[in-house]
């Protein structure tokens, strides 16, 4: 089986949604064990759409849990996230997503 990049898409909704406040934002570097993320406003009736592009497979459920926690804890809503992942651990993913939000003044 040849190597390829895999795509995962999740659509989640926070319990207490807060609309994402800026048009476009970007954070991170796709280093080994790291990831970058683009977060943009997108009208999704309060939901969040997250696309992950990654060389790693078999971690769908881990991604879901990390992302659900992130969405519920931050309340991020009406946003589209695009992640380029390079083998980041759940801890790193959590950290980077939160850092991405904290960069938005």
């Amino acid at each position, binding site marked *: 089986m*040849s*190597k*390829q*990049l895999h795509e995962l898409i999740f659509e989640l909704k926070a319990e207490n949604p807060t609309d994402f406040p800026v048009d*476009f934002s*970007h954070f991170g*570097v*796709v*280093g*080994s064990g*790291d990831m*970058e993320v*683009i977060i943009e406003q997108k009208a999704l009736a309060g939901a969040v759409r997250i696309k992950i*592009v*990654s*060389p790693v497979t078999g971690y769908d459920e881990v991604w879901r849990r990390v992302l659900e926690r992130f969405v519920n804890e931050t309340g991020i809503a009406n946003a589209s996230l*695009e992640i*380029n*992942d*390079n*083998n980041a651990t759940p801890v790193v993913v959590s950290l980077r997503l939160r850092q991405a939000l904290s960069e938005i003044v």
Partner: protein
Amino acid sequence: MTSKWEKFQQRSFLESNARTRAIGLVDSGSFTELAGPRHRITSPHLPLLGEAVEFDDGIVTGVGMIGKKPVFVASQEGRFIGGSVGEVHGAKLVNIVHLARKSYDKLLTANPDLPEEKRPAVIISFETGGVRLHEANAGLLAHAELMDQFQDCKGKVPIISLIGSRVGCFGGMGFVAAATDVIIMSQFGRLGLTGPEVIEEEMGKDEFDASDRALVYRTTGGRHKYIMGDCNILVEDTITAFRQALQEVLVKPYVEIATMGCIGSLKKVQSQLKLVDLCARVSPKDAKDIWKIAGNDNPDALTDMPLDVFLQTVKHLTNSDQGE
């Protein structure tokens, strides 16, 4: 409340990512990124190899101002596949230089008397191992195209290299940097052709021990390059230090900037050939042998002394040192 840009100024250049460097080197708030993450121009080749992509393909390009001067910026991200040059990365690098030269032509056609302080310049923050092997042909082509753009810039647009990041500037990009007008480094910057690990792999640990950090820095680091004359200016490891050195260079007349490079005249070629003769005669075992020849009586002390002391006391290798 300190702005982001102001905070960047005191940051370690070595620790700063490509975007931070690009934003911090030009005037506050002046940087506009071109072909950035928003445009998502990712590598078309990496996915086929199952390799992760980056929205900017490992390079930040754009325009900012330094005083009244439009500055075309390229800043490489060493953490993305070693800052290596792939197709998109290469195209961005080539095209930002091309854009600078086109802007020069446009500005000077509209106003032939445009003062130097308003004429464009190119700055490149190198952090790269050279060609990205996954995209080797495209990477190599980009090196050639970039050298071609440099030629088009001669007589028009000064090109300044800044080398002070973790990966250093190696591979084909080493000679590309050597083809620019001015090289500003920090002592943590490294500049060379074949990287230390590759030398060790090819020639063995006895020839070159890549894990010997002191050796690596004596051979390719900023202080050695400064003694050899491969780098023009050595600065402290902060964004503001690099920025200040850049400002000092950019106020010089272009005719002066154009003389500061390593190559570009018969005299300079002859100087390089003399250096080859010197090495053949002396057979140096270590950079310190050359430092001594350059007139530094205590070469061992040069590596650790504070930068300001180093700059005051160090002797450069000159033409007369290389002489008969």
